[in-house]
């Protein structure tokens, strides 16, 4: 039955139910009280990039090929290749700066990197006090170990490790086959044959 004012009363009933329910049903109250409690972000969550190294920080996977610098849409990466005294390029970066006040977390640098060396972190607590230089992450800040990468993104890191291992094995197999073929070609002909 439809009495005047019915919609108003039904509205009041719903808010009352929400009010009472928020004391008794935990799933009604969805507040997470940061910083005492933190939401568990999912594995795929991405914030800012970082560089991966395998054994030690002075041997990163990055070869300073500058593909990520070119492909980055807001141009927030700045790379300078490391050279030795004679000017020959060593395949690693001397300067690798990412300005995280410009970075828009689009993940394109991760997709185009051919060496699986730049990956996305999920640390979001990056506030700093200084506005201008504190938000530029330099090479020491960016280098993090493969163990750290496995910790924050286990499934993705496992895939990357498997791929790198397969590539390394394929390369080793090819090298061994080439060495075997070269050894066969320069082998001493067997005794008895006419040269």
């Amino acid at each position, binding site marked *: 039955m439809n009495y005047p004012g019915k919609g108003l009363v039904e509205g009041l009933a719903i808010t009352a139910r929400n009010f009472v329910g928020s004391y008794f049903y935990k799933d009604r109250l969805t507040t997470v009280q940061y910083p005492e409690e933190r939401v568990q972000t*999912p594995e795929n969550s*991405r914030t800012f990039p970082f560089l991966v190294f395998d054994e030690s920080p002075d041997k990163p996977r990055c070869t300073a090929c500058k*593909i990520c610098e070119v492909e980055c849409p807001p141009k927030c990466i700045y790379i300078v290749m490391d050279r030795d005294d004679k000017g020959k390029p060593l395949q690693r970066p001397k300067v690798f700066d990412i300005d995280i006040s410009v970075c828009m977390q689009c993940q394109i640098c991760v997709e185009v990197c051919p060496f699986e060396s730049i990956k996305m972190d999920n640390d979001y607590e990056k506030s700093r006090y200084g506005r201008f230089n504190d938000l530029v992450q330099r090479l020491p800040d960016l280098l993090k170990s493969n163990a750290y990468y496995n910790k924050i993104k286990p499934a993705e890191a496992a895939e990357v490790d498997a791929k790198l291992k397969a590539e390394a094995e394929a390369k080793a197999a090819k090298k061994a086959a080439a060495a075997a073929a070269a050894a066969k070609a320069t082998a001493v002909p067997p005794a008895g044959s006419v040269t």
Partner: protein
Amino acid sequence: MIAEPLINSADTITTKTLEISIGPQHPSTHGVFRMDVVLDGEVVRALKPVVGYLHRNHEQLAEKISWLGSMPYTDRLDYFNSMSNNWAYALAVEKLAGIKVPERAECIRVIMAELSRLQNHASAIGFLLQDCGAWGTPLLYAFKEREKILDFFETVSGSRMMCNYFRFGGVRVDLNDAMLAMARKIVAEFPKFLDEFEKLMTTNEVVLARCQRVGILPRELAIAGSVSGPVARASGVEYDIRKVDKYGIYDRLEFGVPVGRIGDVYDRYYIRVLEMRESVKILQQVLRDIPAGPVQAVEVKLRGFKIPAGDGYGRVEGPKGELGFYLVSEGGPKPYRYHIRPPSFINLTVLEDMCVGHKVADAIIILGSIDIVLGEVDR
């Protein structure tokens, strides 16, 4: 808009009109948006929208970076529905380059777009009711549902709102079973929220008094002003790009498109509720029948991707209207011209006609019912 003396017909007091600028810093203008209104007492006599406070040079920027590099920028156009924006751009590029999208990727695209539509409409009507004066209650209920959808987006693509998920020829990451179960759970719980929300607001006498017969948009004016989306459909224009262009797999899905008749604020509110119900139907069908397969076309390269010369226009039915991308390519790795047809900007052209003759409070509600987002209006 000069202040003119008006002669009141009832007696011989001359009154002047009052010119006020509502915005750009205002709690209810949905962003940095300014309206210069000329008021006579409480009645609006003229209204001029002033935009441009959020202009970020998107179209110019796109001419300097590669085709793929513009994809994250399209997230930030209509920052509520990044998935729909990505789809419009990907559709335009695929049309130009002639790329075919695999079946599973099409299904995933529909799932993402419809979830995006659900959360956009929920927050749109939440904000509309917030402008009406309900102190946050319907808005926060809508946001609770929206959180579930945003958590799903974060699980799949890594980011809650700026997803950057679509690629030319497919999507970036495949959905595994856990993610599909999450999506099914969201879709199962959504109708309950809609029922509670409708009970709270749809027959509420105060909402009815505020929203009925306010801001009527006649059908001819909607067509003449190229208004699109729920605003046009509430006025009786039967046009939904999902049914007209049949992009993606929409021609295989069964869903209805609700069309209203009167075109006032209440109609625009209720059409969005009905569209949410239809989206739930679409999602149930796709989540039931999603096939296995690859999610990206193999011939698309990430770097150095070139599109043959030509121009093309790709459009989707975004939650706010028709979002289109007009691209001109010279055969290179960067666009020559990149133009966006933003639905919010074009829907705003009829704002003055809808508001004249109503009161100031109504002008705010009418603006809320068009559902604009400034990232799209100003690009």
